[in-house]
Protein backbone atom coordinates (compact mmCIF):
# COMPACT_ATOMS: atom_id res chain seq x y z
CA UNK A 1 0.00 0.00 0.00
CA UNK A 2 2.68 2.53 1.01
CA UNK A 3 5.54 1.10 -1.05
CA UNK A 4 8.89 0.99 0.74
CA UNK A 5 7.31 2.34 3.95
CA UNK A 6 5.22 -0.81 4.21
CA UNK A 7 7.80 -2.79 6.11
CA UNK A 8 7.91 -0.14 8.87
CA UNK A 9 4.16 -0.52 9.34
CA UNK A 10 4.78 -3.93 10.91
CA UNK A 11 4.55 -3.37 14.67
CA UNK A 12 7.89 -5.02 15.41
CA UNK A 13 9.80 -2.97 12.83
CA UNK A 14 8.13 0.21 13.97
CA UNK A 15 8.95 -0.59 17.60
CA UNK A 16 12.63 -0.97 16.73
CA UNK A 17 12.57 2.18 14.57
CA UNK A 18 11.14 4.17 17.50
CA UNK A 19 13.70 2.68 19.83
CA UNK A 20 16.62 3.75 17.63
CA UNK A 21 15.19 7.18 16.70
CA UNK A 22 14.05 8.19 20.20
CA UNK A 23 17.40 9.13 21.79
CA UNK A 24 18.50 11.08 18.70
CA UNK A 25 15.30 13.08 18.58
CA UNK A 26 15.52 13.81 22.31
CA UNK A 27 19.14 14.95 22.08
CA UNK A 28 18.60 17.25 19.08
CA UNK A 29 15.44 18.67 20.64
CA UNK A 30 17.24 19.42 23.92
CA UNK A 31 20.00 21.20 22.01
CA UNK A 32 17.47 23.26 20.05
CA UNK A 33 15.63 24.14 23.27
CA UNK A 34 18.84 25.49 24.80
CA UNK A 35 19.70 27.52 21.68
CA UNK A 36 16.12 28.72 21.21
CA UNK A 37 15.63 29.73 24.84
CA UNK A 38 18.92 31.60 24.88
CA UNK A 39 17.93 33.30 21.63
CA UNK A 40 14.47 34.17 22.90
CA UNK A 41 15.29 35.24 26.44
CA UNK A 42 18.73 36.85 25.97
CA UNK A 43 19.63 37.50 22.35
CA UNK A 44 16.30 38.87 21.06
CA UNK A 45 15.74 42.59 21.77
CA UNK A 46 12.74 43.68 23.83
CA UNK A 47 9.63 44.82 21.98
CA UNK A 48 8.92 48.51 21.30
CA UNK A 49 5.51 48.33 23.00
CA UNK A 50 5.44 45.30 25.26
CA UNK A 51 9.00 45.38 26.55
CA UNK A 52 10.10 41.99 27.83
CA UNK A 53 6.57 40.60 28.21
CA UNK A 54 6.51 39.67 24.53
CA UNK A 55 9.07 36.90 25.20
CA UNK A 56 6.25 34.59 26.21
CA UNK A 57 5.63 34.07 22.48
CA UNK A 58 8.65 31.74 22.46
CA UNK A 59 6.52 29.23 24.39
CA UNK A 60 3.01 30.36 23.49
CA UNK A 61 3.23 30.37 19.70
CA UNK A 62 5.09 27.03 19.25
CA UNK A 63 2.68 25.29 21.66
CA UNK A 64 -0.32 26.72 19.83
CA UNK A 65 1.07 25.56 16.47
CA UNK A 66 1.84 22.13 17.91
CA UNK A 67 -1.61 21.81 19.46
CA UNK A 68 -3.07 21.93 15.95
CA UNK A 69 -0.34 19.86 14.28
CA UNK A 70 -0.68 17.02 16.82
CA UNK A 71 -4.43 16.95 16.27
CA UNK A 72 -3.96 16.54 12.51
CA UNK A 73 -1.47 13.72 13.09
CA UNK A 74 -3.94 12.07 15.47
CA UNK A 75 -6.90 12.35 13.07
CA UNK A 76 -4.94 11.23 9.99
CA UNK A 77 -3.40 8.20 11.68
CA UNK A 78 -6.82 7.39 13.14
CA UNK A 79 -8.27 7.46 9.63
CA UNK A 80 -5.48 5.20 8.35
CA UNK A 81 -6.32 2.75 11.11
CA UNK A 82 -9.98 2.86 10.11
CA UNK A 83 -9.49 2.42 6.38
CA UNK A 84 -6.35 0.33 5.91
CA UNK A 85 -6.27 -1.35 9.34
CA UNK A 86 -2.65 -0.29 9.79
CA UNK A 87 -1.88 -1.68 13.23
CA UNK A 88 0.62 0.96 14.29
CA UNK A 89 -1.61 3.87 13.36
CA UNK A 90 -3.98 3.14 16.26
CA UNK A 91 -0.99 3.18 18.61
CA UNK A 92 0.21 6.49 17.13
CA UNK A 93 -3.22 8.14 17.41
CA UNK A 94 -3.61 6.99 20.99
CA UNK A 95 -0.14 8.31 21.89
CA UNK A 96 -0.89 11.73 20.38
CA UNK A 97 -3.86 12.69 22.53
CA UNK A 98 -2.24 13.51 25.92
CA UNK A 99 0.63 15.29 24.15
CA UNK A 100 -1.74 17.42 22.12
CA UNK A 101 -3.78 18.20 25.22
CA UNK A 102 -0.60 19.32 27.01
CA UNK A 103 0.38 21.63 24.15
CA UNK A 104 -3.15 23.08 24.04
CA UNK A 105 -3.16 23.68 27.78
CA UNK A 106 0.25 25.34 27.58
CA UNK A 107 -0.95 27.64 24.79
CA UNK A 108 -4.07 28.62 26.75
CA UNK A 109 -2.20 29.14 30.03
CA UNK A 110 0.64 31.22 28.59
CA UNK A 111 -1.83 33.25 26.56
CA UNK A 112 -3.84 33.96 29.67
CA UNK A 113 -0.77 35.04 31.63
CA UNK A 114 0.16 37.41 28.80
CA UNK A 115 -3.40 38.64 28.36
CA UNK A 116 -3.79 39.98 31.89
CA UNK A 117 -1.14 42.73 31.68
CA UNK A 118 -1.45 43.38 27.91
CA UNK A 119 -5.17 43.21 27.18
CA UNK A 120 -6.31 43.85 30.72
CA UNK A 121 -8.09 40.50 31.14
CA UNK A 122 -7.23 36.82 31.71
CA UNK A 123 -9.84 35.52 29.31
CA UNK A 124 -12.32 36.69 26.69
CA UNK A 125 -14.82 34.63 24.73
CA UNK A 126 -13.59 35.65 21.31
CA UNK A 127 -13.48 33.22 18.38
CA UNK A 128 -9.76 32.34 18.66
CA UNK A 129 -9.73 31.61 22.39
CA UNK A 130 -13.02 29.74 22.33
CA UNK A 131 -12.05 27.50 19.41
CA UNK A 132 -8.72 26.68 21.08
CA UNK A 133 -10.62 25.74 24.27
CA UNK A 134 -12.86 23.46 22.19
CA UNK A 135 -9.68 21.79 20.90
CA UNK A 136 -8.68 21.03 24.50
CA UNK A 137 -12.10 19.49 25.11
CA UNK A 138 -11.76 17.40 21.92
CA UNK A 139 -8.51 15.96 23.24
CA UNK A 140 -10.15 15.27 26.62
CA UNK A 141 -13.09 13.62 24.87
CA UNK A 142 -10.76 11.42 22.84
CA UNK A 143 -8.86 10.37 25.96
CA UNK A 144 -12.05 9.69 27.91
CA UNK A 145 -13.34 7.55 25.03
CA UNK A 146 -10.13 5.52 24.98
CA UNK A 147 -10.37 4.96 28.72
CA UNK A 148 -14.06 4.08 28.68
CA UNK A 149 -14.00 1.38 25.98
CA UNK A 150 -12.21 -1.76 27.10
CA UNK A 151 -11.67 -3.41 23.72
CA UNK A 152 -8.68 -1.64 22.16
CA UNK A 153 -9.80 -1.99 18.55
CA UNK A 154 -13.26 -0.69 19.32
CA UNK A 155 -11.77 2.20 21.27
CA UNK A 156 -9.42 3.05 18.40
CA UNK A 157 -12.31 3.02 15.93
CA UNK A 158 -14.55 5.23 18.08
CA UNK A 159 -11.64 7.58 18.80
CA UNK A 160 -10.78 7.89 15.12
CA UNK A 161 -14.36 8.88 14.26
CA UNK A 162 -14.40 11.49 17.04
CA UNK A 163 -11.02 12.85 15.90
CA UNK A 164 -12.22 13.10 12.29
CA UNK A 165 -15.44 14.85 13.27
CA UNK A 166 -13.42 17.40 15.26
CA UNK A 167 -10.96 18.02 12.44
CA UNK A 168 -13.07 20.95 11.18
CA UNK A 169 -12.03 22.87 14.31
CA UNK A 170 -8.43 23.15 13.04
CA UNK A 171 -9.13 25.53 10.10
CA UNK A 172 -11.56 27.40 12.37
CA UNK A 173 -8.82 28.03 14.93
CA UNK A 174 -6.37 29.07 12.24
CA UNK A 175 -8.66 31.44 10.35
CA UNK A 176 -10.72 32.68 13.33
CA UNK A 177 -8.68 35.88 13.58
CA UNK A 178 -9.31 36.63 9.90
CA UNK A 179 -12.95 35.63 9.60
CA UNK A 180 -14.21 37.44 12.69
CA UNK A 181 -13.15 40.46 14.67
CA UNK A 182 -11.36 39.06 17.69
CA UNK A 183 -9.37 40.47 20.58
CA UNK A 184 -6.56 38.08 19.65
CA UNK A 185 -4.20 39.63 17.10
CA UNK A 186 -3.94 38.39 13.53
CA UNK A 187 -1.23 36.06 12.19
CA UNK A 188 2.33 37.37 12.41
CA UNK A 189 4.46 34.70 10.77
CA UNK A 190 2.15 32.75 8.49
CA UNK A 191 0.65 35.59 6.48
CA UNK A 192 1.17 36.05 2.78
CA UNK A 193 3.51 39.04 2.83
CA UNK A 194 6.68 39.17 4.90
CA UNK A 195 6.27 38.24 8.59
CA UNK A 196 5.65 41.35 10.68
CA UNK A 197 8.22 40.42 13.27
CA UNK A 198 11.82 41.61 13.29
CA UNK A 199 14.34 38.98 12.10
CA UNK A 200 16.23 39.04 15.40
CA UNK A 201 13.00 38.00 17.13
CA UNK A 202 11.83 35.60 14.42
CA UNK A 203 14.90 33.34 14.32
CA UNK A 204 14.66 32.20 17.98
CA UNK A 205 10.93 31.62 17.44
CA UNK A 206 11.59 29.29 14.50
CA UNK A 207 14.29 27.45 16.49
CA UNK A 208 11.85 27.00 19.36
CA UNK A 209 9.26 25.72 16.91
CA UNK A 210 11.69 23.08 15.65
CA UNK A 211 12.58 22.15 19.23
CA UNK A 212 8.90 21.67 20.11
CA UNK A 213 8.34 19.58 17.00
CA UNK A 214 11.28 17.26 17.67
CA UNK A 215 10.27 17.01 21.33
CA UNK A 216 6.85 15.86 20.16
CA UNK A 217 8.32 13.17 17.90
CA UNK A 218 10.74 12.04 20.64
CA UNK A 219 7.95 11.59 23.19
CA UNK A 220 5.70 10.07 20.52
CA UNK A 221 8.38 7.41 19.94
CA UNK A 222 8.43 6.54 23.64
CA UNK A 223 4.66 6.48 24.03
CA UNK A 224 4.10 4.54 20.81
CA UNK A 225 6.52 1.83 21.99
CA UNK A 226 4.47 1.32 25.16
CA UNK A 227 1.23 1.28 23.19
CA UNK A 228 2.56 -1.23 20.65
CA UNK A 229 3.84 -3.60 23.32
CA UNK A 230 0.50 -3.51 25.08
CA UNK A 231 -1.38 -3.94 21.82
CA UNK A 232 0.79 -6.84 20.63
CA UNK A 233 1.29 -8.46 24.01
CA UNK A 234 0.18 -11.84 22.70
CA UNK A 235 2.55 -11.89 19.73
CA UNK A 236 5.74 -13.91 19.78
CA UNK A 237 8.22 -11.06 19.42
CA UNK A 238 6.83 -9.22 22.44
CA UNK A 239 6.99 -12.39 24.53
CA UNK A 240 10.56 -12.90 23.40
CA UNK A 241 11.36 -9.29 24.23
CA UNK A 242 9.90 -9.69 27.70
CA UNK A 243 11.80 -12.91 28.32
CA UNK A 244 15.02 -11.31 27.10
CA UNK A 245 14.45 -8.38 29.40
CA UNK A 246 14.06 -10.65 32.42
CA UNK A 247 17.06 -12.78 31.50
CA UNK A 248 19.56 -10.02 30.89
Amino acid at each position, binding site marked *: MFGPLDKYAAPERFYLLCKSMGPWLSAISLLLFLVGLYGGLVYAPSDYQQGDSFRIIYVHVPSAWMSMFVYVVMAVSGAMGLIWKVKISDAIARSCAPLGAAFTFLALATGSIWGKPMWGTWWVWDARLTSELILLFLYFGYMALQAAIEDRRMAARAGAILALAGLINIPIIHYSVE*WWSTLHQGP*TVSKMDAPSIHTSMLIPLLIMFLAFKLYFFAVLCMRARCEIIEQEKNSRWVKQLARGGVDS
Partner: protein
Amino acid sequence: MNPRRRKILFSVIFIVAGVGVATALVLKAFQENLLYFYSPSQIASGEAPDSRLFRVGGMVVDDSVVRDPNSLKVSFDLTDTAHTVTVQYNGILPDLFREGQGIVANGQLQDGGVFVAKEVLAKHDENYMPPEVAEALENAGAEVQYGDYKTGK
Protein backbone atom coordinates in the same frame (compact mmCIF):
# COMPACT_ATOMS: atom_id res chain seq x y z
CA MET B 1 -8.31 -1.26 -2.96
CA ASN B 2 -10.89 -3.81 -1.95
CA PRO B 3 -14.57 -2.79 -1.83
CA ARG B 4 -14.74 -2.88 1.96
CA ARG B 5 -11.85 -0.47 2.41
CA ARG B 6 -13.24 1.77 -0.31
CA LYS B 7 -16.54 1.87 1.56
CA ILE B 8 -14.83 2.91 4.80
CA LEU B 9 -12.74 5.49 2.92
CA PHE B 10 -15.91 7.04 1.52
CA SER B 11 -17.56 7.08 4.94
CA VAL B 12 -14.51 8.85 6.38
CA ILE B 13 -14.64 11.46 3.63
CA PHE B 14 -18.39 11.75 4.20
CA ILE B 15 -17.95 12.35 7.96
CA VAL B 16 -15.28 15.03 7.47
CA ALA B 17 -17.17 16.78 4.65
CA GLY B 18 -20.54 16.49 6.41
CA VAL B 19 -19.29 17.92 9.68
CA GLY B 20 -17.48 20.61 7.71
CA VAL B 21 -20.58 21.73 5.82
CA ALA B 22 -22.76 21.61 8.95
CA THR B 23 -20.26 23.70 10.89
CA ALA B 24 -19.92 26.19 8.06
CA LEU B 25 -23.71 26.68 7.98
CA VAL B 26 -23.95 27.08 11.77
CA LEU B 27 -21.11 29.61 11.80
CA LYS B 28 -22.70 31.46 8.90
CA ALA B 29 -25.98 31.67 10.84
CA PHE B 30 -24.25 32.95 13.96
CA GLN B 31 -21.88 35.23 12.06
CA GLU B 32 -23.03 38.33 13.91
CA ASN B 33 -22.76 36.78 17.37
CA LEU B 34 -19.21 35.66 16.68
CA LEU B 35 -17.96 39.19 16.12
CA TYR B 36 -16.08 40.15 19.21
CA PHE B 37 -16.61 43.85 18.54
CA TYR B 38 -18.34 46.30 16.20
CA SER B 39 -16.52 49.04 14.34
CA PRO B 40 -17.41 52.75 14.59
CA SER B 41 -18.67 52.53 10.98
CA GLN B 42 -21.12 49.78 11.94
CA ILE B 43 -22.37 51.99 14.77
CA ALA B 44 -22.78 54.88 12.35
CA SER B 45 -24.79 52.72 9.95
CA GLY B 46 -27.02 51.48 12.77
CA GLU B 47 -25.85 47.84 12.73
CA ALA B 48 -24.88 47.86 16.40
CA PRO B 49 -27.56 47.02 19.00
CA ASP B 50 -28.91 50.06 20.86
CA SER B 51 -30.60 48.42 23.84
CA ARG B 52 -27.92 46.09 25.16
CA LEU B 53 -24.21 45.95 25.94
CA PHE B 54 -21.86 45.44 23.03
CA ARG B 55 -18.21 46.02 22.24
CA VAL B 56 -16.71 48.62 19.97
CA GLY B 57 -13.18 48.35 18.58
CA GLY B 58 -10.98 50.95 16.96
CA MET B 59 -7.88 53.05 17.25
CA VAL B 60 -7.61 55.80 19.84
CA VAL B 61 -7.51 59.13 17.95
CA ASP B 62 -4.39 61.24 18.61
CA ASP B 63 -4.94 64.11 21.09
CA SER B 64 -8.47 62.95 21.90
CA VAL B 65 -7.78 61.58 25.38
CA VAL B 66 -9.24 63.84 28.08
CA ARG B 67 -8.68 62.86 31.73
CA ASP B 68 -10.63 64.25 34.65
CA PRO B 69 -7.95 65.53 37.08
CA ASN B 70 -10.05 64.62 40.16
CA SER B 71 -11.15 61.06 39.30
CA LEU B 72 -10.45 58.09 37.04
CA LYS B 73 -12.92 59.37 34.44
CA VAL B 74 -11.49 59.50 30.96
CA SER B 75 -12.92 60.17 27.54
CA PHE B 76 -11.40 59.42 24.15
CA ASP B 77 -12.38 58.96 20.51
CA LEU B 78 -12.18 55.61 18.68
CA THR B 79 -11.86 55.51 14.91
CA ASP B 80 -11.71 52.95 12.10
CA THR B 81 -10.50 55.80 9.82
CA ALA B 82 -13.99 56.16 8.29
CA HIS B 83 -16.09 56.99 11.37
CA THR B 84 -15.41 58.01 14.94
CA VAL B 85 -17.20 57.33 18.22
CA THR B 86 -16.57 59.04 21.57
CA VAL B 87 -16.06 56.70 24.53
CA GLN B 88 -16.40 57.59 28.21
CA TYR B 89 -14.90 55.33 30.84
CA ASN B 90 -14.46 55.37 34.58
CA GLY B 91 -11.71 52.98 35.69
CA ILE B 92 -8.14 51.80 35.25
CA LEU B 93 -6.90 51.54 31.68
CA PRO B 94 -4.68 48.60 30.53
CA ASP B 95 -0.90 49.07 30.16
CA LEU B 96 -1.03 49.17 26.38
CA PHE B 97 -3.60 52.00 26.30
CA ARG B 98 -2.19 54.95 24.39
CA GLU B 99 -3.06 57.19 21.49
CA GLY B 100 -2.89 55.30 18.20
CA GLN B 101 -3.41 51.97 19.97
CA GLY B 102 -6.15 49.48 19.12
CA ILE B 103 -8.77 49.31 21.87
CA VAL B 104 -11.91 47.25 22.48
CA ALA B 105 -14.46 48.82 24.83
CA ASN B 106 -17.50 47.03 26.26
CA GLY B 107 -20.51 49.17 27.12
CA GLN B 108 -23.66 50.80 25.85
CA LEU B 109 -24.44 53.52 23.36
CA GLN B 110 -26.19 56.51 24.94
CA ASP B 111 -28.74 58.72 23.24
CA GLY B 112 -26.22 61.42 22.38
CA GLY B 113 -24.11 58.94 20.41
CA VAL B 114 -21.60 58.71 23.25
CA PHE B 115 -20.45 55.18 24.14
CA VAL B 116 -20.25 54.63 27.90
CA ALA B 117 -17.79 51.80 28.57
CA LYS B 118 -17.84 49.42 31.53
CA GLU B 119 -14.59 47.75 30.47
CA VAL B 120 -11.68 48.78 28.24
CA LEU B 121 -9.28 46.18 26.77
CA ALA B 122 -6.18 46.79 24.67
CA LYS B 123 -6.02 44.90 21.38
CA HIS B 124 -2.45 44.14 20.54
CA ASP B 125 -1.41 44.11 16.88
CA GLU B 126 0.67 41.46 15.16
CA ASN B 127 3.83 43.56 14.87
CA TYR B 128 6.91 42.82 16.93
CA MET B 129 10.07 44.91 16.66
CA PRO B 130 12.85 46.38 18.78
CA PRO B 131 12.33 50.01 19.95
CA GLU B 132 15.11 51.29 17.66
CA VAL B 133 13.35 49.90 14.59
CA ALA B 134 10.02 51.43 15.63
CA GLU B 135 11.79 54.76 16.12
CA ALA B 136 13.51 54.53 12.74
CA LEU B 137 10.17 53.74 11.09
CA GLU B 138 8.59 56.74 12.75
CA ASN B 139 11.44 59.02 11.72
CA ALA B 140 11.13 57.82 8.15
CA GLY B 141 7.52 58.95 8.26
CA ALA B 142 6.09 55.47 7.91
CA GLU B 143 3.17 54.90 10.18
CA VAL B 144 3.14 51.68 12.15
CA GLN B 145 0.22 49.69 10.84
CA TYR B 146 -2.28 48.59 13.44
CA GLY B 147 -4.59 45.61 13.07
CA ASP B 148 -7.42 46.38 10.73
CA TYR B 149 -10.80 47.15 12.16
CA LYS B 150 -12.94 46.29 9.19
CA THR B 151 -15.53 43.95 10.59
CA GLY B 152 -18.58 42.18 9.27
CA LYS B 153 -16.63 40.46 6.52
